[in-house]
């Protein structure tokens, strides 16, 4: 038996005397209570109300793991459903540039990319060494669409010798200019008397890109080629819409200032807004010009080489469905964790404050109760 259940032996006589007393209720009170009890409702049914069955502690014990499982399941489900939706052709077209690309970026770009009108399946994909034919007939670019697009091509062409290399470089530059484009960059290297490399960065008008690609491929044996087409129409439309709004705003601000109905303070404020809108207009116009420039000229990166050595495949391995699922699920879990942390950060101080207030109120009530009982004789 715990010590606090024992009553000190010193008081055993007193306790005995207290217990010997009779403090039973009188008969009148007994009858009164019986009359009250007669009106009592029937005993509670065995099944308790939902609110009473789920007490806070039990609810927390159930709800917390349930929420964790639900969050993980939602993430896995999202990963599972979205991992199969990434278009493989678009992926191949996009991965031609740069190193590792995240699934999110791939999907975003694939979503934005305009689907070229019915390209042959081999055309839009990457041609790897040995697979491609050696003539210009095997090279083809997806035809440009009526929409604004960012159109990029990477080609690798093998030529027979250094003589042929220099001639090919000159020819590629001439063809580019003839088609209305320009040479953005040329890099030529010849480490020995037999072999060399040249890399040309060419900007060709979209309308002539197919012709250009065929010509470049005809310079030698096409080793590899990649295409990327990213739709710019949406961005362009948004910029145009934004420009319209800004022009309208500027006109409104001007009319407000010229009407002379504004107070000095309001006028200064409107003038400030007008200046800001003008600046935004200028910036947006520049952005629109850049978009149009991207949409007008395609970018062709042409590599010419005399080396026979098989080039290392630059395309990173397309992630498997499982990898994509894990990647997506991880992304969703990360987002959930961020939201949870955010909610905790926002609600935490309030919850803490509420707990403190509750504790203070409890303490205050106990103190007042103690004082009341001490004062009551």
């Amino acid at each position, binding site marked *: 038996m*715990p*010590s*606090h*259940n024992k*009553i*000190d032996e*010193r*008081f055993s006589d*007193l*306790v005995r*005397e*207290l*217990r*010997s*007393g*009779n*403090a*039973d*209720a*009188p008969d*009148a*009170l*007994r009858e*009164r*209570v*019986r009359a*009250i*009890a*007669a*009106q*009592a*409702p*029937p*005993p*509670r049914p*065995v099944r*308790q109300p939902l609110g*009473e069955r789920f007490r806070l502690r039990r609810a927390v014990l159930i709800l917390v793991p349930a929420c964790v499982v639900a969050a993980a399941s939602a993430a896995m489900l999202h990963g599972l459903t979205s991992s199969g939706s990434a278009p493989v052709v678009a992926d191949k077209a996009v991965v031609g540039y740069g190193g590792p690309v995240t699934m999110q970026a791939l999907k975003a770009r694939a979503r934005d990319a305009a689907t070229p009108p019915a390209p042959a399946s081999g055309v839009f994909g990457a041609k790897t060494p040995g697979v491609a034919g050696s003539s210009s007939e095997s090279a083809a670019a997806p035809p440009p669409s009526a929409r604004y697009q960012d159109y990029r091509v990477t080609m690798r062409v093998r030529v027979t010798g250094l003589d042929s290399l220099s001639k090919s470089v000159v020819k590629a530059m001439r063809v580019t200019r003839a088609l209305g484009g320009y040479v953005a960059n040329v890099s030529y290297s010849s480490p020995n008397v037999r072999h060399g490399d040249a890399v040309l960065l060419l900007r060709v008008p979209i309308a002539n890109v197919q012709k250009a690609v065929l010509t470049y491929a005809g310079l030698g044996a096409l080793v590899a080629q990649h295409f990327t087409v990213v739709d710019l129409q949406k961005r362009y439309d948004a910029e145009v819409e934004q420009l319209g709004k800004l022009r309208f705003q500027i006109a409104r601000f001007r009319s407000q200032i010229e009407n002379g109905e504004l107070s000095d303070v309001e006028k200064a404020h409107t003038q400030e807004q007008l200046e800001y809108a003008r600046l935004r207009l200028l910036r947006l116009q520049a952005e629109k010009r850049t978009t149009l420039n991207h949409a007008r000229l395609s970018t062709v990166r042409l590599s010419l080489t005399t080396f026979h050595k098989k080039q290392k495949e630059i395309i990173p391995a397309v992630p498997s469905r499982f990898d994509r699922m894990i990647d997506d699920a991880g992304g969703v879990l990360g987002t959930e964790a961020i939201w949870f942390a955010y909610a905790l950060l926002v609600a935490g101080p309030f919850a803490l404050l509420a707990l403190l207030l509750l504790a203070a109120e409890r303490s205050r009530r*106990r103190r007042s*109760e*103690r004082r*009341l*009982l*001490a*004062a*009551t*004789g």
Partner: protein
Amino acid sequence: MTGSRPLGGAREATPSFAAVAEDHLDDVHAYLLYFTGDRSVAEDLTAETFERACRRWRRFDPRRGSAKTWLCQLARSTALDHFRTEQRRRRREGVYALREPGEAVEAAFSEGFSPALEEGLRSLSAGEREVIALRVILELDGETAAHLLGISPTACSTRLSRALQKLETKVRADAVA
């Protein structure tokens, strides 16, 4: 010592309110008698407690505590409400219920108690008499009594020891006198 906590997890059939009232009427009355130190007030508060209990009977959960503990909790809150009302009334009216020193002590707590014990009990505060009622008269275990009082079992034990010490000192002093 009466076990006042139900067996953990055992689902017993809830008894009728009439049976519970019959079983625990004397306990509630004794508790309120010690707590208030006034027989008529204790009777009124006992009736009020059972009225409250009757209204809340459907909310009683035997798994959370025995009927005796539940009724004592209701009795306590009824008595505290009464004390607060009395305190407010006294403040408002500027009346202090001071008993005249020469006034005869009537047997408020029990017919069989000696006048010294009666006087000793009267000299205690309501809080001290309450802990004696719970632990000595109703024979609740320390944990249940502490839970009912909203304090720790150790604090409850200390409060009981002090109350009994004070009572014994008073009784001895009165007996010598």
